[in-house]
């Protein structure tokens, strides 16, 4: 339930009109920050999500939308101010998230395909 709520919250932010793209971030630094600042704790090392955080590996947000959400989240996530993580750092994290390969469809994974059939 909470997870769906989160995804909806992310999606709603993504649709806000008038947000401009920021310059691309540094994905390598973003990965370092993703681990250093504890993003993985709730979202998983691969951004796959779980009990405590939404899946963000397939994030559709712009960097600005991500920044806006992180500054004022509406779900269980705590607010991160620019004192603990800057806009540029979030832009780098956004760039890292874009590099995470998309998950294969379940039907292409034999163990999961078996589950889909039953």
């Amino acid at each position, binding site marked *: 339930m*909470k997870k769906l709520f989160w995804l909806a919250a992310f999606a709603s932010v993504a649709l806000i009109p008038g947000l401009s793209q920021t310059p691309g971030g540094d994905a390598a630094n973003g990965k370092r920050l993703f681990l*250093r*600042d*504890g993003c*993985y*704790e*709730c979202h*998983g*090392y*691969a*951004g*796959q*999500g*779980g*009990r*405590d955080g939404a*899946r963000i*590996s397939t994030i559709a947000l712009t960097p600005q939308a991500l920044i806006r959400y992180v500054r004022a989240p509406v*779900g*269980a996530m*705590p*607010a*991160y*101010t620019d*004192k*603990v*993580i800057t806009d540029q750092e979030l832009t780098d994290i956004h760039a890292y998230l874009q590099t995470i390969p998309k*998950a*294969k*469809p*379940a039907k292409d*994974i034999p*163990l*999961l395909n*078996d*589950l*889909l059939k*039953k």
Partner: protein
Amino acid sequence: MARSKKISVDRRGFLKGAAAGAAALVVKPEAAKAQEAAEVHRPATPNPLPGAKQTASETTPPPPRVDVYTTDRPGSDFMVDVIKTLGFEYVAANPGSSFRGLQESCINYGGNKSPEWITCCHEESSVAMGHGYAKIEGKPLLVMAHGTVGLQHASMAIYNAYADRVPVYILLGNVQDVAWRRGDVEWAHSVQDAASMVRDYTKWDDAPVSLGHFAESAVRAYKIAMTPPMEPVVIVADAVLQEEPVPENERGRLQIPKLTLASPPAGDYGALKEAAKMLVNAENPVIVAGRVARTPEGINLLVQLAETVQAPVVDRHFRMNFPTRHPLFGAGNVRAADVVLGLEVPDMWFVTHTQTPVNRMGMEAKRITKPGAKVITIFAGDLSGKSNYQDFGRYDEVDLAIAADAQATLPILIEECRKLITSDRKAALQQRGVKLAEVSRKNRERDIEEAAGAWDASPISTARMAAELWNQIKTEDWSLVSDVTFVSWWPQRLWDFDKHYQFIGGHGAYGIGYGAPAAVGAALANKKHGRISVNIQCDGDLNYAPGVLWTAAHHRIPMLNIMHNNRAYHQEMMYLEDMAARARRGVENAGIGTAITDPNIDYATMAKAYGMFSEGPIDNPNDLGPAIKRALEVVKKGEPALIDVVTQPR
């Protein structure tokens, strides 16, 4: 109190001083007498070597006559007679001097059968084993412990069982009479009111002062523990009653009362008629299941109710309540419901409310049920309550509260619902059922798609771990003997649960350290049924009392332990992260005091040290399936095994 006779050694003959009763000691060797005066004022410091008195007594010629202290029928034999009538299969305990009489009687007089002695390495493990055992077997395990230091160790596990409404039967040893306490150890291990320490979270206790009193209270305690709401009970077995012979004047008169369990309380008929009317007339009813199914019949009844009114079931996963692939599983939405039926839900307020922001100080509570929605509860917790420990949760405003055991009440509720369903209504309900089945199917497909995320990642995702496990056990008669909270409920989302013993729920009071011993206890219960017990074991939890691995190995308890080794007390790491973000500083420090790294703990080596087959650490997801298969072969031969899996956080 009758004392033992001074007679020749027989079955329970102990050299003087070795048993209880300094009063029985009469003759002293001359050399010992000479030393005694010199030793009177010597500080009572520990001495690992035999003292001069003992040396003299063992090296000088014996006097012409020595009184020995024997007991031909100790009170503990009678206590074992009582214990046997209660049908305990096992007694779990660390050895302890205050119940040594009972231990000896269990092993020798009782033949170490019914109950069989299970050697534990921590009292918390003993009780938690009882906690897990009872959730599989439906009856208590016997636990013995010191009334002082043992109970102090055991107390958190007792609180977990209490909050989880699980019966555990605890016998405490204690030396009540000051005249019978030998030395500083027995004084330190004695207590005026042993059970007082856990009285806030046990259902009943007593400290019998005679064997007849013991028999009556022991039987009463069992009955009370097994009456819903089921909870732990404590009986204090006085050491003098244990070790001294059955008094002559009581022999032939001692009786063990007949045990008759109370039938569980069913709900008020009028209230159930009203509840049935609300459910049948509802457009979007939702059933929320807490600790509903006490037995396999509980699952059958919940399925019957859900199908009768075509209501979806939201399972709180406190017990195995409802088949996970049933079309009505998981399709419920409390926010959209017009009637919410809570069955044995201990935290109903949290079902009907949200807090914003979640888990934050200064939070605001908001009711999430829609205006006019009716809430019905059937809850045995309404029949009793204590004030100090706050596991009862927030007070919830409901429209119909039925104080009763839900499983005992369901047959009446189902029957009343059936009476009210007309043919037209039945058709409408069936249409609703079709829609709910579609929602349930889509939920399942979504879960399976989500499981594909991080499929090839290292550390291994908890979804991959659950899927690999399922692939190995799906054709076996399996039982998941661990909680699923910390693995994002993946087993429930992917596996096919439909039997009562396939899931035991969680901690109760969320006291960490429950997981490993509860799993061993549940696996002990599964052993005679030939089931494959599967324990997804959190690393932080195992480190509280890992000696229970030895208990599993020593007693040949077959179970497959899969480490969920995320190398952290991860829940607390997230909380710390949360606090740091709130304080706007140092979010990068959340691992301090929460991470279990540097060095990483090698759980495979730990398990080997305790005598258990093991493999790992495994961090390549492609290595996991074959490792589980190898471990499963060991388990099928009747032994425990452990696979250390380095995992994603949740």
